[in-house]
């Protein structure tokens, strides 16, 4: 096997394109999963089965079917019903939706970990329910779950190559395209491998900094 630095430099413009797409998918997918997961977690606490049953069934279904199948479904089946989005939009939504079914469990655990005394104090002060959630319960719950959410960000990063299956040219897609056109596999795959490590590492540093800032 021969290492060819000129292949590396030829690949770099494609790499940057792929990196931007990967980061877009990661950041937007994370944002969707964080918001949607919280929505699911809160809906699961609505005291009526008319809400918890459908939400529970839907999220259970999404969590227990493969992300790849969901990607294909959203990308190839939805257009038959007249719903069409770009490949990247579809991919970001699919990842965000898929991971929201995991983050909802993280939020649930975080909410349940807030001591019952906090609810009682809020009642004793007559705080309205909405205010109790927004200034008492959720700030404490979210603080507790940042590390767990961070782990899912890393997982999501490692799942972004699946978007290649629906024609999104993220890092792996760019690397494969370059490899097939130039018959040079080693260099592009090595470059993106390192890129994944570097992104994971930076993301974990950022999350640790966030955790530290949230601790009181």
């Amino acid at each position, binding site marked *: 096997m021969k290492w060819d630095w000129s292949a590396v430099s030829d690949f770099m413009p494609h790499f940057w394109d792929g990196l931007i797409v990967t980061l877009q998918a990661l950041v937007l997918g994370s944002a969707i999963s964080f918001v949607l997961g919280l929505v699911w977690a809160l809906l699961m606490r609505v005291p009526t089965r008319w809400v918890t049953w459908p939400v529970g069934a839907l999220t259970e279904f999404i969590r227990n079917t493969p992300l790849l199948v969901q990607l294909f479904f959203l990308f190839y089946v939805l257009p038959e019903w007249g719903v069409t989005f770009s490949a990247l939009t579809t991919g970001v939504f699919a990842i965000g939706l898929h991971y929201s079914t995991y983050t909802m469990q993280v939020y649930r655990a975080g909410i349940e970990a807030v*001591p019952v*005394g*906090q609810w*009682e*104090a809020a*009642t*004793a*002060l*007559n*705080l*309205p329910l909405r*205010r109790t959630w927004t*200034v*008492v319960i959720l*700030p*404490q719950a979210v*603080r507790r779950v940042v590390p767990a959410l961070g782990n899912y960000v890393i997982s999501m990063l490692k799942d972004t190559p699946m978007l290649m299956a629906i024609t999104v040219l993220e890092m792996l897609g760019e690397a494969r395209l370059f490899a097939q056109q130039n018959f040079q596999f080693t260099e592009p795959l090595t470059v993106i491998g390192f890129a994944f490590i570097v992104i994971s590492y930076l993301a974990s540093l950022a999350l640790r900094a966030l955790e530290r800032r949230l601790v*009181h």
Partner: protein
Amino acid sequence: MHPTDSKPDPRRSTGELIRLEQVTKRFGDHTVLDHLDFSVDAGKHVTLIGPSGSGKTTILRLLMTLLKPDEGTITVDGDQLFPAPEKQVREVRKKIGMVFQQFNLFPNMTVLRNITEAPVTVLGMSKDAAEERARELLELVGLTEHMHKHPSQLSGGQQQRVAIARALAMRPQVLLLDEVTSALDPELVAGVLDVLRDIARSTDITMLCVTHEMNFARDISDQVLMFDSGRIIESGSPEKIFSEPEHDRTREFLSAVL
């Protein structure tokens, strides 16, 4: 609308403030309170004593609406608290404040914000007025210099004093004190009790107090109620209950705790 000085509030009623009628509370098969009747007059300091599990704390929790009775009615200042629609509960509950055994300060807020949050969002006080009031209360509990700290930076005794200030900031007519020194290290108890003695002396607030601090009970109480198995078996002035208890159970209990 919401005076921040400490003049007696003209809205304060005299006479009977709290009334429980035929209140029953069960936990599963266990009946904690059994058709209990009792009332508290405005401005009085009433201490509930008795063995654990006798229903003292349950009464405070019913009054704070943290629990619902299975039967009976609860009235505060002439307005029904139970049974009552949620909207009315919210109104009546404004008259009641509570200090908990475990402090239950909001750890994500500063001391100041812990105290101002409810006056601003529930009573509609301006932020400035609420902070002014909070400063006065922090002075009362001796913690002015800790205003901008978070609860975790304070000792248990300091946290409990903040919790007292937080409850008073809502200008309740009734203050419920649920074993407020039980979770404290022994050397921190006195500071908290001193603050409460001060409040009992200098305000017209009605106090309902569950405690194992018999000296404190003797100092501040107008009336002591001895509970056993969900019933009041004896009541009277602290002098009478502590010096000449009539009931054998009271004598046994007091000799065990004094």
